[in-house]
């Protein structure tokens, strides 16, 4: 077994590291992108069974959210969650282990790419059903409110999910009960192979907040600091018992929808124009401009991340698949009736 697998860095430590500064945030974004590249290659090569959904282009949103929340806050997210999982602190081992179906993964290898979870940093099991996370986040907030805890819940989901009933019902419920919950719509312009304008009659999804008399905020999802600010503001509001907020983050899905998708349906030039606003590019330029990092350091971070992830993956590849017993665990709670 590779030594990488023995890393003792925990999710909580990684979460705390983020708060140390822009460099750490940048490193995390690089880590996410690097892992997604590796995941892409592994699936393309057929080394992993099933499908996967990459978050390339959305790293700033993931990291911004993680920065604004506390580890005791709870997040619901989707099948497109490798980034938020890593941003919240989950280790590459937990995440890649799960994606690769190994028992060192966060759900012992029975969940896979669409199902990540680590309660120690507030990630509820991610949802493969569009919209299903919204009411569950409202419910986590209901628990906080009822138990008198000052935590908040945050639901992340895509633009396409704002057309499903659960979105509407959850915002209504959260509004009427003033639940400490934040709904973050990651508007990455596409739902599967459909451009948003073919499925949604309005362009600015934050406007849907008006149906529930709650604040609707739009933010540049390519900018970590901007995301952190609005999420923090919404979280503060929630902690002050003033109720939910809808945040729309404008981003772009740089990858196809899932494993096999090459996104032939994109208008010519659209990807390229959004790549100008690549969150990693923007941040590295900013950090270099501000003198936080040199260009050399940027390259070095990129390179060393690539190396450590490769090493991790090599180690993981060497691991056997889980024992059959894995599928029989955790179906029922064995804890006795009290």
């Amino acid at each position, binding site marked *: 077994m590779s030594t990488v697998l023995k890393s003792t860095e925990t999710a909580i430590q990684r979460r705390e590291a983020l708060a140390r500064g822009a460099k750490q945030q940048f490193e995390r974004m690089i880590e996410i992108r690097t892992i997604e590249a590796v995941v892409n290659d592994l699936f393309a090569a057929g080394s992993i069974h099933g499908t996967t959904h990459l978050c390339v282009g959305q790293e700033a949103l993931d990291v911004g959210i993680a920065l604004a929340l506390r580890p005791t806050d709870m997040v619901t997210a989707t099948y497109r969650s490798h980034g938020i999982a890593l941003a919240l602190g989950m280790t590459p081992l937990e995440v890649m282990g799960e994606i690769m179906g190994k028992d060192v993964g966060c759900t012992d290898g029975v969940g896979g790419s669409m199902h990540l979870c680590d309660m120690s940093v507030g990630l509820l099991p991610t949802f493969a059903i569009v919209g*299903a996370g919204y009411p569950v986040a409202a419910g986590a907030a209901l628990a906080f409110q009822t138990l008198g805890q000052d935590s908040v819940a945050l639901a992340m989901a895509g633009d396409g999910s704002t057309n499903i009933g*659960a979105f509407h019902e959850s915002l209504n419920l959260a509004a009427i*009960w003033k639940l400490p919950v934040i709904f973050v719509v990651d508007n990455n312009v596409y739902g599967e192979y459909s451009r948003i304008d073919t499925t949604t009659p309005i362009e600015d999804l934050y406007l849907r907040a008006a149906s529930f008399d709650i604040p609707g905020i739009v933010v540049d999802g390519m900018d970590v600091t901007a995301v952190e600010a609005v999420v923090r503001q919404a979280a503060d509001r929630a902690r002050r018992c003033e109720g939910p907020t809808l945040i729309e983050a404008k981003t772009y899905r740089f990858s196809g929808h899932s494993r096999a998708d090459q996104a032939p349906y994109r208008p010519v030039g659209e990807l390229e124009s959004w790549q100008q606003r690549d969150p990693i590019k923007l941040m590295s330029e900013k950090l270099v401009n501000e003198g936080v990092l040199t260009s050399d350091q940027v390259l070095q971070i990129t390179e060393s991340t690539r190396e450590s992830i490769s090493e991790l993956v090599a180690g993981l590849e060497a691991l056997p698949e889980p024992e059959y017993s894995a599928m029989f665990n955790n179906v029922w709670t064995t804890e006795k009736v009290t």
Partner: protein
Amino acid sequence: MKMRMREAIVSALADEMRSDPTVILLGEDIAGAGGPFKTSDGLLDEFGPMRVRDTPISEMGFTGAAVGASALGLRPVVEIMFMEFLGVALDQLVTEAAKFRYLSAGQISCPLVVRASIGAGLGFGSQHSQTLENWVTSTPGLKVVTVSSPQSAYDLMRSAIRDPDPVIVLEPRVLYADRSEVETGDHRIGKLGVAHLAQIGEDLTIVAMGQTVNIAVRGTQQAGVSADIIDLRTLAPWDRETVFNSVKKTGRLVVIEEAPESGGWGSQIVSAVTENQFRDLKSPTVRITTPNVPVPYGKKLESKFLPSPDEVAHTLSEFLETGNVPAPWWVREGYVQ
């Protein structure tokens, strides 16, 4: 103390809420109005609006909220007024709650109870009278319970709330007004998955559940038949031992269910018995069901539609006499060939 079944439910909810501050109730009109079937009458007054919450008409929203709340330290009890309404929310129960523990590698469970009223008999028509147990059985991770009397409602409700896994409790609507002696108290709390022998006999094993338990009792009395009547109580996972032991003794199995002949929970029982006890069986197995039609309105049609003591008596007598399975009324009387 004599209680109606709806009062026994109130009692069970109240006792659990008293003993565990994390138990909360969610549902449409369960607070101020005490519940459309008065199954939470008075609980708002005692426990306040934080713990007894009226919801908007948003079954997906509040069932999902209960899933999230259950993962974060509450024990929510959700009321689904009519089982049909789960048709707009089933995802949260079957595809989310039932798999949360699996998909979190045991980090969390969903100690959630969904209560849903089921069945016909009150003239609510085709869209408010189905039983629909099939929607929720065969879901690993989800327990399914059906109550059959005030006492079983009290016992099972308290036990379901204590259960660490998601549980759906089906309440035959026609029984809410039934009144009988109920013993309350913590000693009534038990494990789910245990059937109850409602009557002991020799000649056959009747498996019933919920509203068909009384029908079975009355039908056997009418026919003068000596039968074990097993009130299944938990449908998933069901109590194989009790059923198998009885069939071993009697050699004959009859299931009485308020579900269409074309498919209902009884087939699971028949199938397991046939697989495991084929050589103990002296005769074919029998299912007494409803015909394959939507639930009709109107007392005459609806009463005929439902499994009745008369139909049970007729079926059992002929079955014991001939060793063969009698045709159901809709075939005997020529409505369906």
